[in-house]
């Protein structure tokens, strides 16, 4: 009996010594939940709201990075928006998609803790794909020429404007002369 109590006390002592060390080691651990996206299938060029639960101490800043890919490439430029701690461990941020040919988006977090930024790009729980649907303000863009960053060659109205201006100019000139 005496031996058992002695063993328990030794275990408690060792545990007592180790726990603070473990506590310090895990204090910096950040647990990131899955990012939820609203709407789940955003339209191109629209605003998307990102919400995520993050638990951990010393979280100073959270930013959401959003990458847009069209059918043939993923754009170099990333959206990089700050998130705010809305309640408890919930962080929310919004980003407006900037390409009108996006089909897939990827989002992930970068978190600043104790002065160090951690990138969660390769953390599959936070790196979330979302499908972007064409919507009203994107897509084929036929007939307009201000369609943004698609790189698509779409028919424009510049020659029409030039022709109309020349006709008007000639008309005014003729009128002035008569």
């Amino acid at each position, binding site marked *: 009996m005496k031996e058992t109590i002695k063993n328990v006390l030794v275990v408690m002592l060792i545990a007592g010594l180790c726990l603070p060390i473990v506590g310090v080691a895990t204090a910096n651990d950040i647990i990131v939940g899955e990012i939820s996206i609203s709407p789940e299938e955003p339209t191109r060029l629209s605003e998307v709201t990102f919400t995520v639960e993050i638990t951990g101490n010393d979280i100073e800043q959270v930013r959401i990075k959003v990458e847009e*890919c069209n059918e043939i490439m993923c754009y170099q*430029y990333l959206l990089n928006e700050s998130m705010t701690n809305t309640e408890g461990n919930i962080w929310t941020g919004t980003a407006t998609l900037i390409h009108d040919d996006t089909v897939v988006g990827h989002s992930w977090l970068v978190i600043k803790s104790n002065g160090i930024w951690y990138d969660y790009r390769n953390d599959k729980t936070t790196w979330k794909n979302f499908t972007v649907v064409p919507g009203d303000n994107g897509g084929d863009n036929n007939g307009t*020429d201000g369609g*943004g960053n698609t*790189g698509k060659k779409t028919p424009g109205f*510049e020659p029409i*404007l*030039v022709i109309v201006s020349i006709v008007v100019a000639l008309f005014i000139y003729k009128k002035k002369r008569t």
Partner: protein
Amino acid sequence: VSKIIKIKSFIIIVLLIILPSFFTGCLNNSSEENEGDNKDLENVYVENFTFTLLDGNKKSTSEYQGNVVVLDLFGVNCQPCQFQMMVMDQISKNYSSKGVKIISIDVWIVFGETPGLVKDFIDEFKAQLDIVLDWTFGVDNASGTIFYKYVPADKGIPMLYILDKNGNIYYSHAGYMDYSSLSTKIDGLLE
């Protein structure tokens, strides 16, 4: 008086012609965008740069002088880049004997990708698709030196460059490029 009227008319005409040009100039930014080709980058010498091989050793592009090089800037987590790898595999099979060298550099190291991830990527290709990606693979540095220099801000990856034997950019293309188009470009250089 008639002279003044004439001058006024002339000014009005000039303004009417010029003003729409201003507006069309503002709108014109997309129509001159390319379909993936970057004409402004053609015939430009690629400054020799060093990249890190997957085993940690450094390699310089200057070592490829005398060879036609297909430079493929990619990212593991970029889906179009994965499709591009299949094309690069065909290029490797059909053009290695003609002295064409392929260099694939992961430029998304700047976003947290690692050499280990690239190794896994190569292993996955072998395991899942039985495709051996047997050309030179490397990674950019954590600052994204190659990424920011050779992937234009309004473009993305995969970003392909065909370099001639002197290291000049013969052709560049942002985005996935099929085998037929890419091989035609290479043939044009080899002729």
